[in-house]
């Protein structure tokens, strides 16, 4: 009997201790949570000078994340897991085309010293400078509007590697700010050329006479071309120029094939050919 009593008493003490421990832990967590919250607020105040917007209420830790704008300057979460500040200032990189003349001087100097790797780098830089100039000149020569759509200055782009793999590409977009758009990409020395020339020279790509016609050969201002249509992306018109250049027009929500070709004829194709040195 005594033994039973001792056992029950011991169990009661143990349970009560566990209960206390759990309560204690909860209290401890709460205090710690409050402490962390306070610390988080202090850090927020330190960095942003204003109190963090705790609009989530439920967890109190990710409130700022829902609002990307308000979080840009104070991204540190109160749980300490997101303490790295986001970059919200800085001027970015300045686009400086390489100095062609200086790079040719560098190439000559390096070549005379038999530093061929250095000389090659300098020539590549010079070539990059020349290609960017060619690209910018072509961009300037493109019309302000095409097929009734206005040019989007922000989308103008000239890309060059200076040596080969991607070649020189010039990109411009025209749209009506609603749903119509024509994208023009002019590529020179590009790997794209192989694919398009295969279309034009390989008899294997025979034109279909039945079923859905998705592509066919056509002409734009006397230049052989390929026009394709895809329900999701619209029209695509590829016009190879000479040996190594290509113009690709992509038209979204253009009413018909005729409209697409008429719009494409708005470009001075002969002028572009001349600037790219194509015959």
């Amino acid at each position: 009997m005594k033994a039973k009593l001792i056992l029950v008493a011991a169990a009661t003490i143990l349970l009560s201790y566990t209960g206390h421990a759990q309560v204690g832990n909860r209290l401890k967590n709460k205090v710690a949570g409050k402490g962390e919250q306070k610390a988080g607020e202090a850090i927020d105040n330190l960095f942003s000078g204003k109190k963090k917007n705790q609009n989530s209420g439920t967890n109190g830790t990710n409130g700022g994340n829902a609002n990307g704008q308000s979080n840009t300057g104070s991204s540190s979460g109160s749980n300490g897991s997101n303490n790295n500040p986001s970059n919200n200032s800085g001027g970015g990189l300045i686009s400086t085309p390489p100095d062609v003349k200086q790079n040719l001087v560098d190439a000559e100097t390096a070549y005379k010293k038999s530093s061929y790797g250095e000389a090659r780098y300098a020539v590549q830089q010079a070539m990059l400078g020349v290609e960017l100039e060619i690209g910018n000149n072509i961009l300037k020569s493109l019309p302000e509007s095409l097929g009734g759509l206005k040019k989007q200055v922000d989308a103008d782009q000239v890309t060059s590697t200076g040596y080969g793999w991607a070649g020189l590409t010039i990109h411009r977009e025209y749209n009506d700010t609603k749903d119509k758009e024509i994208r023009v990409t002019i590529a020179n020395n590009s790997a794209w050329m192989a694919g398009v020339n295969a279309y034009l020279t390989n008899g294997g790509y025979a034109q279909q006479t039945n079923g859905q016609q998705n592509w066919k050969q056509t002409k734009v201002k006397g230049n052989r071309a390929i026009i394709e249509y895809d329900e999701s992306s619209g029209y695509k018109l590829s016009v190879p120029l000479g040996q190594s250049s290509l113009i690709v027009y992509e038209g979204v929500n253009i009413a018909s094939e005729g409209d697409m070709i008429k719009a494409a004829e708005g470009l001075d194709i002969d002028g572009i050919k001349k600037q790219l040195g194509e015959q």
Partner: protein
Amino acid sequence: MKKLLYILLVIAASTASAQEFDKNLTTARSSYGSGDLENARFAMEQMLRDLDMAIGKEILKLLPTQIGSLKTDEKKDNLTGGSGYGGGLYVQRHYGVDPKSGQIEIINNSPLINSIQAILTTPILGGMMRDENQKQVKIQGYKSLLTKTVNSETAKTNYELQIPMNNTLVTVRMEDSNEAEIVAAANGIQLAKIVAIAQ
């Protein structure tokens, strides 16, 4: 006498190459000055080819004349420079005669290099592409990819070792060989000097 003739030929070739470079440099300068950008670019492409050829010749000088017991025939050396259109520089030297032969190949500034770099530097990709006939080894500190193939007709074993270094890929191939032999051959190549020249 033969050696003297060879040296004279090398000097004559390098002089001609220098003249080409100077000529193209003059054309590039004058065309750029007159606003003929396309012609300037064309001249620069030729300059890149001239430079590729010069780099290739320097690399050939560094390649061993013998790997293992296989001797080279320098007349079969192959050198192509094609920077302008993405081909990059290509240097090839043959050793021995069939069926016991080998090759050292160097590709510089070519997009081919990236795929091998990816396998060697991305453990997860290397793991996915696990192949019992392929393994990674280190040659003079460079991570390299060793591939074994067995000729189904002759049952002889061939090896290929690819060593990517920055923008240069060195490939050693040996027919009817073994791992130790190809690794020894690769260790005989002056890799660091080749990288420095081709950089």
